[in-house]
């Protein structure tokens, strides 16, 4: 009777697709640029995989190719995370300021 966890993951995957679909339709068009930069930032959650890759393997040799790739991936994703969120913050700040101006 045990269900393969893959099926659960698949369910989660499919349901998330629906949410993505709906979530975007409800975003006001004027915020489409921030939306892009936020989703971009979010998609670098791949850093999770990068960290696992970076820390994987024996404790002695941390410089297997696999680890090094992990480290690089961490850097790339981190650029994205910080850059993405901060730039979004800046954009949204602009909206706020404009509103206040009047």
């Amino acid at each position, binding site marked *: 009777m045990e269900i393969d966890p893959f099926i659960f993951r698949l369910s989660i995957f499919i349901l998330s697709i629906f949410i993505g679909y709906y979530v975007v339709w409800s975003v006001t068009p004027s915020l489409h640029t921030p939306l892009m930069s936020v989703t971009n930032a979010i998609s670098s959650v791949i*850093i999770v995989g990068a960290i696992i*890759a970076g820390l994987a393997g024996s404790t002695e040799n941390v410089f297997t190719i*696999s680890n090094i790739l992990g480290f690089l*991936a961490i850097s790339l994703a981190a650029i994205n995370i*910080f850059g993405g969120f901060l730039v979004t913050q800046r954009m949204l700040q602009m909206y706020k300021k404009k509103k206040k101006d009047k």
Partner: protein
Amino acid sequence: MSANLSAIFYLVSGVLFILALRGLSSPETSRQGNFFGILGMVIAITVTFLSVGSFSSGLIYVLIFLLVGGLIGAFIAYKIPMTAMPELVAGFHSLVGLSAVFVAISAFLNPEAFNLGSPGAIKLASLIEMSIGAAVGAITFSGSIIAFLKLQGIMSGSPITFKGQHFLNALLLFSILVLTYLLCSSQSSNFFWILIAVSFLIGFLLIIPIGGADMPVVISMLNSYSGWAAAGIGFTLENTALIITGALVGSSGAILSYIMCKGMNRSFFNVILGGFGATEQSASTGNKEQRPVKSGNAEDAAFLMKNASSVIIVPGYGMAVAQAQHALREMVDTLKKNDIKVTYAIHPVAGRMPGHMNVLLAEANVPYDEVFELEEINNDFANADVAFVIGANDVTNPIAKTDPQSPIYGMPVLDVEKCKSVLFVKRSLSPGYAGIDNELFYKDNTLMLFADAKKMTEDITKNL
């Protein structure tokens, strides 16, 4: 940290990402949304550290690389001019794509660390997932690089097409399937490398035929790809956060590019398949030399005006032809409800008879104290945020001030160009009564709204 606990936390961070996107449904909640996104990311990273458990000396390197990347990212975010956003996002996408490729390779090389079997005997499902992650990641990477180059102007923005392009793409995509199959059946790493290489090529080929104007759609599409790549890796790593987020980003990016196409009145498939779009574009241009104008839609106009604190309306003959005075009044009412100061600037010869505009504005019950003649209002343009020029043309033409050869030289004109932004509502680029071109159409702070004045004004009101 137990697997269950970390799974729950991953779920939480997935939910936070959903809330982050949801926050963008209105400017008010948008900053909160961004905060949720950051929180979700922090949780995901922390949980990963805690759950890996075995704190090898690698940890220090991980932290260093994280820090270095973070600093670079922060630096870029602060330095980048707001106008370079599209390039920036394209650039960032390439990074996500590349890290997906790296993670996939890392997992392929060291499957034990990820619980996927041993090298040469990786679980079938994981292998497929890994291939998908790597392939999509690679496509994202090279595609984003091209998009970035095109937007930066390093590469020409015009579409690059050649014969058999679509056939080649189809062939390459098919070869990916074949390679995956071969990889699974032979577990030979060579196929894996070829797979990645081919994917890089595909990314490159997919984007070069797409014109610069369509880049925003492409970026959003690449965004979507990066999501799918993350989801693929998520399956490989059996990580809920990655799956949720990947699917979320993947579908939202796809829908967003669809929405953007609709907004631009372009066929989604034409844009995505590239090349098709290009021929269409050149056909409409004709052989007349045409200078570029920025043209927008009602939403853009509404957005600009909503964020203005003062708007000056410049009506002209086109408003009369379209009988747009009632719709205009409606729009102004809505603006005023948003606390925006609105005034009307009437040029002495606007329209086709003396007092033409006054008749129409009075018909629409525009209060007299909002209506100003040229001399009264001409200095106010410099302090106004938006000039909304509706069906006027000659009366705004600055050539009257500069070119003694011009037939309208010497006529006083409304200095609309001094506003931060100028919106021109007219149906085409064709000239007005005097039959001369208007320099303003091509200015940087001008947005052309090509439509019938009444229709456009109504649409803007809807978007306010």
